[in-house]
């Protein structure tokens, strides 16, 4: 058994997290897509804190001695998943960023020796006039 004190702290904590996540989504500070893992964390922790029977059988199942360790264990497990999830997202963002940087670079093309590429300059010239006018 966990103490009533710890139970109250765990329930209030996970309930608070749940409401905070919902509030962030409501204010569009957190995209729905990213709320999934946080929501799952809050719900599972709330379930474990409120439902003594589940916590007891889970503690037995994972071979833990104290039921409070089961709470910490699942809390930590979710945090690890979240961090891994972020690493995956960062890798994706980096890949996209590199592709964008390359596209920008491809737009910066500078040709040396204008004499060799007169036809290109001739094509560009009217556009320049239009901009200036």
């Amino acid at each position, binding site marked *: 058994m966990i103490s009533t004190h710890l139970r109250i702290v765990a329930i209030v904590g996970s309930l608070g997290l749940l409401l905070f996540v919902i509030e962030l989504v409501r204010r569009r500070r957190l995209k729905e897509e990213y709320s999934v893992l946080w929501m799952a964390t809050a719900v599972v922790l709330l379930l474990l804190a409120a439902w003594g029977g589940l916590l007891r059988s889970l503690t037995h199942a994972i071979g833990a001695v104290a039921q409070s360790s089961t709470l910490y264990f699942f809390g930590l497990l979710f945090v690890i998943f979240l961090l891994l999830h972020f690493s995956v997202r960062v890798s994706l963002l980096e890949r996209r960023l590199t592709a964008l*940087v*390359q596209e920008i670079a491809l737009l910066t093309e*500078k040709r*040396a020796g204008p004499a060799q590429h007169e036809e290109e300059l001739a094509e560009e010239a009217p556009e320049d006039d239009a901009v200036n006018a």
Partner: protein
Amino acid sequence: MTDPQILIVSPANTAAGRVGRVVRDVTRALPMADVLVVDDGSADRTAAEASEAGAITLSLPVNSGYGATLQTGYKYGVRHHYDVIGQIDGDGQHQGEYLPVMLEALRQADADLVVGSRFLDRDGHYRPSLARQVGIGLFARVASVVTRQHISDPTSGFQLMRIGVARFFCSEVYPTDYPDADILILLHRAGFKVLEVPVKMRPSSGKSMHSGHRSLYYVYKMTLSILVTLLRPRSQHRAS
């Protein structure tokens, strides 16, 4: 390919004072080729100097690493319909005079990628630090075993390839941080033919684009990269 359109890509990071000479060397060795210098976000006059020397220049707005810089050059070459793409480091480590030999090897041997190897001659003209020697030797061995052909210098960034290889490298298979032995294995598994030719290299003068990767991380990254390359399904991109 009787009269191929050739693009020589030179990735350059803070290479002012050296990149101009590289461009002129390449132009002298292969007068028919276009030279493209891709400046990896240098703060110095790298791009300006390359442009003055007669190169086409592209500038990455932020420093993005060796692989990403090279891949920018491949993308340029593919979009402008070149037939052959070469790559030579902008810091002057590679010598442009070997490009005609490499081009001849590409034609004669019906290879898809020709790599300039500084260790094929075994004349000991090039001596990296002991740590790098061990690392390069290890992955040369691994690459040789996997591709069932002798590979002596998987780290060499001095290469010449048919456009099919460059097109393959424009996809997400290409490691944008530090391509090395893993891409040789990748190419082999995709059905491309790789050939090494002996070249001489100058010792990398001061800060090269490769100095950023520490030996231990290099060993870790390459081991993991080769492992996952082998675990992935073979990609069939061979353009024939």
